């Protein structure tokens, strides 16, 4: 008995941690984190903002049509990006929120897109982040099902697909370099493979997310901006056509996933 005990101690010293051990413990960390998500604070702030009369036109956002009809907020993030006839193009959630702030409240595009994301740690989250948090939170439990019947919706997907595989920059990286293979990790963070439905669902349904490493909730637009930064491409423009096409691609790949955002992540 004693021998076995000593052997066990020696073994644990010789092989500090197996990859499975580490993964189990990381899963445990994530489970404990999920118990309290500060993104809820931002959702509350966003709800107040949504209902507040703001801007030169002194109007609230409550009449905004996010894709399921004017004033309807529940479930919209599960069907976006989609085609909007009033602008004759495909818009993602964040583009549509900004669109409503311009058309309903009279804000200018320039002021809304100047600095949509707060800085790390040191700054209060922006109104854009708060509004996005609120709207996204109202889609929890909704099944992802982006419409693809309009030619422009399909074209957005096809462009997004091509962009996903586009290798460029000094590192020769494409989105697919990290997100096109099963079981890959950067450091200890697993990388969803968008060619697998369950992976794509998990990724699409858990963004936006509160990032504990930044002390802030980050939107899907930010997620892409920062992926491209790590990819060593130039700075992605907020609400750019490429961002919308890539979100369409991810959303179509994540079909039938159940929305669970804002989530909480490292």
């Amino acid at each position, binding site marked *: 008995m004693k021998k076995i005990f000593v052997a066990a101690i020696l073994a644990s010293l010789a092989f500090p941690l197996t990859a499975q051990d*580490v993964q189990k*413990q*990381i899963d*445990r*960390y*994530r489970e*404990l*984190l999920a*118990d*309290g998500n500060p993104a809820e604070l931002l959702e509350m702030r966003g709800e107040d903002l949504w209902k507040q009369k703001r801007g030169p036109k002194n109007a609230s956002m409550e009449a905004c049509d996010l894709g399921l009809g004017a004033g309807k907020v529940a479930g919209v993030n599960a069907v976006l990006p989609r085609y909007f006839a009033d602008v004759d193009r495909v818009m993602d959630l964040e583009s549509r929120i900004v669109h409503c702030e311009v058309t309903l409240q009279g804000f200018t595009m320039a002021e809304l897109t100047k600095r949509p994301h707060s800085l790390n740690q040191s700054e209060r989250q922006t109104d854009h982040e708060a509004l996005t948090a609120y709207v996204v939170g109202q889609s929890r439990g909704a099944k992802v099902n982006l419409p693809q019947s309009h030619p422009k919706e399909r074209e957005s997907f096809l462009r997004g697909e091509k962009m996903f595989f586009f290798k460029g920059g000094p590192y020769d990286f494409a989105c697919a370099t990290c997100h096109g293979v099963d079981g890959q990790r*950067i*450091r*200890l*963070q697993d990388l969803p493979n968008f060619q697998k439905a369950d992976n794509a669902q998990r990724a699409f349904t858990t963004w936006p997310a509160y990032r*504990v*490493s930044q*002390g802030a909730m980050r939107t899907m637009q930010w997620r892409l901006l920062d992926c491209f930064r*790590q990819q060593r491409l130039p700075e992605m423009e907020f609400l750019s056509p490429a961002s919308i096409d890539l979100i369409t691609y991810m959303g179509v790949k994540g079909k039938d996933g159940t929305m669970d955002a804002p989530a909480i992540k*490292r």
Partner: protein
Amino acid sequence: MNIKRRQTIKAGSSLALVAAAISAGVLPTSAFADWNKAAFEAKNMADVLKALGGASAEKSADIVITAPDIAENGAVVPVAVASKIAGTQSISILVEKNPSSLAAEFDILPGTEPNVGTRVKMGQSSNVHAVVKAGGKYYVATKEIKVTLGGCGG
């Protein structure tokens, strides 16, 4: 009272709430311990204990720390502590290798269960101590938590 504070209370529309609470004797400040500056500035467990009014702490198996073995990020490490020691008066969470060890201290009032949780910052892998005061004596349990670097690296 500074202006900022007044604005805060007003903006939160909780002025009435606070006033009502005070007049009803709901917030008898004396019931709550003052913030112990010396304890929060102490660099190690011995100095924290001294600042809290103790001397040494006895190891105890009746203190249970619930926390991950590995933290994916040191900025947020969930730590919960439950004490089965009779007459638990306070529970403190200390991170040994932080610049100041004491992270949080909870007074266990009559009626409070000796079971609390929060999240702490850890600058690096470190021992985390749960110090329990009971019957005027101090007890401690310790758990090592590894902090890892993560993400794409920059």
